[in-house]
């Protein structure tokens, strides 16, 4: 067996001058995203996935990973962040600018997990990969005793190498390895992005159904089709999947219906769709036997595919927060008016995403911006591909 290439190679730290030349969002190591507080002190990825969010950070051309700071400094920054709450705030590692299981990144991923675990933190930690995971990696992932670790494996099944140059067999093998070796961590099939005509044929859905048997839960989601990604498609002569771009993910109604029909198990009244979920946090928390930390239970139409046991857990944990508490917190965070609490969500004005997510994760209750309403059955999704949206216009 050959000596691994990584044996003599370490990840160089970028200099202050080099960091100052990065787009501001990319140089910001911590970002509060819906699925958690995201730590990204390593940037650069060689995987040329055409739909990657790295397009949004002018990071797509940075192919070889580089570090912005040490792991120790990054973990200190994360745990001292004003929005970080021990044992509450979900954490994501390297989910925006690189893949955490690349050989040159992996030692840092494990190091960060160890540093978090050694602090006795019991927060959810999400690691999303599409690269190789072997049995030795699984042993390390099983070794953490405090953090609630979930490894999500992205698998699109898109066969056009201009969009998906990474061989999908890599992710499929990793998922099976993770599932077979899971003791303490959980693993999830992250089936995305689903794009009509590219990867939603009957054969594609059957393949996802087969893969879902090798995961503790499965999430299916659509495509982020922003202007930057559309421009990349156009510059590489890739046919545009949609006529327009959108802020939220696009998951057309007809694709969802076909997926649900195929996953439906008519004889299983307890879990009629198995462990299939629309939302990442629903799958993560289901896999750990907990209630959804994003309070999606308030958006009841999202729950129509959930296992009955999970519905019971979410129902028991879902409590409308105290209005006075939320009002004082929202004011402190900078809301421009007092919040309103409905049976579905806290409605706020003047708060951007990070403080909204802080409120949401603090209370386990949805927090929505009054200026960006979620439409019925299209929670967190763009209107593109939904008949009701056309009729509403």
């Amino acid at each position, binding site marked *: 067996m*050959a*000596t*691994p*290439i*990584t*044996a*003599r*190679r*370490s*990840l*160089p730290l*970028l*200099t202050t001058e*080099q960091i100052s030349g990065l787009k501001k969002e990319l140089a910001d190591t911590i970002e509060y995203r819906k699925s958690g507080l995201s730590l990204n002190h390593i940037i650069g990825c*060689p*995987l*040329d996935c055409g739909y990657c969010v790295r397009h949004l950070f002018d990071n797509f051309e940075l*192919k*070889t*990973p*580089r570090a912005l700071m040490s792991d120790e400094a990054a973990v200190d920054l994360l745990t001292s962040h004003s929005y970080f709450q021990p044992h509450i705030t979900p954490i994501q590692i390297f989910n925006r600018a690189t*893949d955490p299981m*690349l*050989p*040159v990144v992996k030692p840092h991923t494990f190091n960060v997990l160890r540093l978090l675990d050694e602090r006795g933190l019991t927060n959810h930690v999400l690691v999303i990969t599409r*690269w190789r995971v072997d049995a030795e990696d699984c042993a390390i992932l099983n070794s953490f005793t405090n953090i609630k670790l979930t490894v999500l494996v992205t698998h699109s099944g898109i066969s056009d*190498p201009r969009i998906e*140059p*990474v*061989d999908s*067999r890599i992710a499929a093998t990793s998922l099976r390895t993770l599932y077979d070796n899971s003791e303490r961590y959980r693993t999830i099939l992250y089936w995305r992005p689903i794009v009509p005509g590219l990867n939603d044929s009957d054969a594609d859905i059957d393949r996802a159904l087969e893969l879902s048997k090798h995961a503790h839960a499965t999430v299916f989601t659509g495509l982020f089709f922003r202007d930057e990604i559309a421009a990349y498609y156009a510059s590489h002569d890739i046919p545009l999947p949609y006529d327009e771009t959108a802020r939220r993910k696009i998951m057309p109604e007809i694709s969802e219906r076909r997926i649900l029909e195929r996953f439906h198990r008519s004889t299983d009244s307890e879990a009629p769709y198995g462990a299939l979920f629309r939302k990442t946090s629903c799958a993560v928390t289901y896999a750990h036997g907990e209630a959804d930390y994003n309070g999606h239970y308030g958006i009841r139409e999202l729950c129509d595919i959930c296992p009955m046991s999970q519905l019971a857990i979410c129902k028991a944990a879902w409590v409308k927060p105290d209005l006075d508490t939320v009002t004082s917190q929202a004011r402190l965070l900078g809301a421009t008016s007092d919040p309103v609490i409905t049976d579905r969500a806290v409605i706020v004005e003047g708060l951007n995403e990070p403080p909204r997510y802080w409120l949401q994760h603090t209370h386990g209750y949805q927090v929505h911006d009054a200026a960006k309403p979620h439409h019925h059955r299209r929670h967190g999704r763009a209107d593109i591909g939904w008949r009701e949206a056309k009729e509403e216009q």
Partner: protein
Amino acid sequence: MNTPIHIAITGTHSTGKTVLMRRAEMELRATGLRVARVHGLGKRAAALGLPKMQRHTATSTEWVIAAGIADELAHTTDSDVVLTDRAPIDAIAYYTAALEFRGEPSKPSTTERLEQLVASQAPRYELLLATQLDPAEPVVATHDYDPRYRHLVDRHIHDWLFKTASTYQLVTNTDDSRDQAIALIKRRVAFYENSAPYNDPQL
């Protein structure tokens, strides 16, 4: 400064060269190596108004060879690995196949000079891969290729490899063969990396 390791691939069009080299590029970069992939000479030749494919001439062939050499050398200082998507032998094979396609005789002095130019580059490559045309695999519908010319190029490439007793790794149209090629590239680079003097890359 280290000298980059050079790896090249040859093969007629639509035999999976670019996908394979892109995957090799991702695999190597994933280990932290700086990798350059030299490709796209055909488009650049066309942009210059040079004939291509079955219309190739001695001049267009010489330009493709020379431009490829220049592109590879341009990455001497910024890369640990240079992946060449179309080894210089492609150019000579495309030219001689074009002559046969058009039924034109070759001019020995011209062909010999081009062959010498190509042969002079062979020692640069630590590893040469050669794809083989699979007649059962349909050509991508968007590619407007003449199937006879595509077959001729395949034959001329493999004739050249045989004639020059080249050492190469054959890549057939199977996942196993492509996986083996990627594994070989990684092994060869690892061996080269671990035997050459190493300095941290200059950013």
